[in-house]
């Protein structure tokens, strides 16, 4: 990308039950972020709110969140998708030259206040899928998992290994909601079967949470922080709506979005040039599926990569050192939290989950059934 946009700060939170209102969560996180950066709301050029009307129980739900994120009587807009889409929108607003700073404010409360599966249920086709009652978010993910495993001849044990790695990482991350220290693949394999082959611990947990992030132009970034993280590239792609018109064994949206982001960042060999990745894998199989689709892992070699520890925090190409969405999935915020976790790593501030080499990273976000849409960012120092 010719112009430079930086991530200069963020605040995030996730828990099974955050125990406060969404309004107070939005306020606490933005107020905290402004205090971290020594700014007030007048210093924010534009705000992008990212939440889900269905889960908020009000249409155009940004109208009641404005005052809490400091956007009262200010330039504000809304994204009703994953937070990484909101990050792209905010970055484009800075690239337009109209704004020096942009706040992305995302939150989703599906741990305490709404079923996480409800909004996906109502994305279903009203003439067939809804009356048939066969398809839901978990069933669709299971279809994708089975298709992916069958395509490569992988065993279901791969799912247990992926989940155990992620949940162990999540246990060491204070920002995660589901924390199970000492978790093993055997324990994952013994958890309740939901939709074959997916078990409870292969699936994301219902989560309350949010993430607020401030972007700045190159000129402004230096004034606001010592360690800006730069957006090197971004890409988006949307696959067919209807599952029957897609190849579920892979993800076209992820591969195309990643290809665009890598091209913008000048990366020709993702597996060789990316140091680590934060991937929005809502279900265990999606992590290797997306990693293969995005060129981070050799296709057909996922079990070898996991068994060799390549994806571990100290591995060749760590994936989800934060623990990923199996540790927490506050809908609307999940992709933005992946970006925030990436910033922590790139700044060398990820504590016991810190990876050894952290100069260039890939961040993935998704929306819709089986990641109908993917968003990918390449971030670097």
């Amino acid at each position, binding site marked *: 990308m010719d112009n430079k946009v930086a991530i200069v700060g963020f605040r995030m939170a996730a828990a099974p039950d955050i125990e406060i209102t969404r309004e107070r969560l939005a306020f606490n996180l933005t*107020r905290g972020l402004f205090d971290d950066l020594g700014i007030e709301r007048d210093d924010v050029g534009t705000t992008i709110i990212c939440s889900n009307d269905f889960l908020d129980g009000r249409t155009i739900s940004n109208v009641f969140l404005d005052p809490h994120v400091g956007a009262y009587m200010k330039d504000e807009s809304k994204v009703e998708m994953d937070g990484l889409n909101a990050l792209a929108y905010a970055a484009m607003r800075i690239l337009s030259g109209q704004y020096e700073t942009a706040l992305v404010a995302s939150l989703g409360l599906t741990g305490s206040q709404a079923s996480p599966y409800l909004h996906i249920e109502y994305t279903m086709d009203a003439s067939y899928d809804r009356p048939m009652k066969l398809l839901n978010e978990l069933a669709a993910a299971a279809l994708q998992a089975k298709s992916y495993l069958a395509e490569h001849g992988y065993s279901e044990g791969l799912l247990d290994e992926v989940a155990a790695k992620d949940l162990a990482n999540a246990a060491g991350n204070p920002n995660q909601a589901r924390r199970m220290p000492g978790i093993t693949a055997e324990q994952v394999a013994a958890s309740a079967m939901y939709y074959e082959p997916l078990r409870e611990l292969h699936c994301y947990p219902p989560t309350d949470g949010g993430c607020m992030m401030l972007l700045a132009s190159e000129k402004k970034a230096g004034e606001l922080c010592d360690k800006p993280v730069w957006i090197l590239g971004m890409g988006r792609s949307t696959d067919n709506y209807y599952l029957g018109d897609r190849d579920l064994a892979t993800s076209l949206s992820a591969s195309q979005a990643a290809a665009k982001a890598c091209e913008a960042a000048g990366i020709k060999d993702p597996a060789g040039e990316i140091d680590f990745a934060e991937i929005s894998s809502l279900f265990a199989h999606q992590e290797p599926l997306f990693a293969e689709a995005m060129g981070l892992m050799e296709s057909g070699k996922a079990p070898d990569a996991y068994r060799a520890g390549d994806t571990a925090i100290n591995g060749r190409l760590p994936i989800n050192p934060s623990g990923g969405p199996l540790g927490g999935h506050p809908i609307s915020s999940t992709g933005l939290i992946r970006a925030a976790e990436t910033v922590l790593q790139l700044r060398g501030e990820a504590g016991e989950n810190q990876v050894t080499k952290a100069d260039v990273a890939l961040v993935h976000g998704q929306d819709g059934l089986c990641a109908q849409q993917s968003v990918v960012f390449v971030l670097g120092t």
Partner: protein
Amino acid sequence: MMEETREVQGTWDLSTLKFRIEGVGLRRMLDGMKEGKLIGTKCHKCGTVYLPGPFNCRKCHIAINEPAEVSDHGEIMTFTIGYADVRGNPLEEPRVAPVVKLDGCDSWIMGVLQGVKPEDVHVGMRVKVQWAENLTGSLQDMAYYVPE
């Protein structure tokens, strides 16, 4: 209907949705109402008085928590006279619904106005709260407005 178009029956069930709402400002207002008082929250920085009180000031983007009593007298800022419900069904009686700025408060509060003919209501008119006979600490304590 065109031959190509069909209708199917669908449901839109939001029964699993819960709301968690802010309690401090509302509790303060309801507790005050038991004594026939209206208690809002004042921003300690800019002085804005809100009723019911929020936990933060939208202008200053800071947390606020200072109780502020406001008068039960005020002025009609705008009003409407309802002759039908939102689906167009006629009401038995026209209903006068003013929005009132109570003295000492920056928020405007909507209610029902009684004791005056619809044709005599006007913007700028002075009104006061008619309290319920038995105060229980509920929103119904503030029964309706009457001319001052």
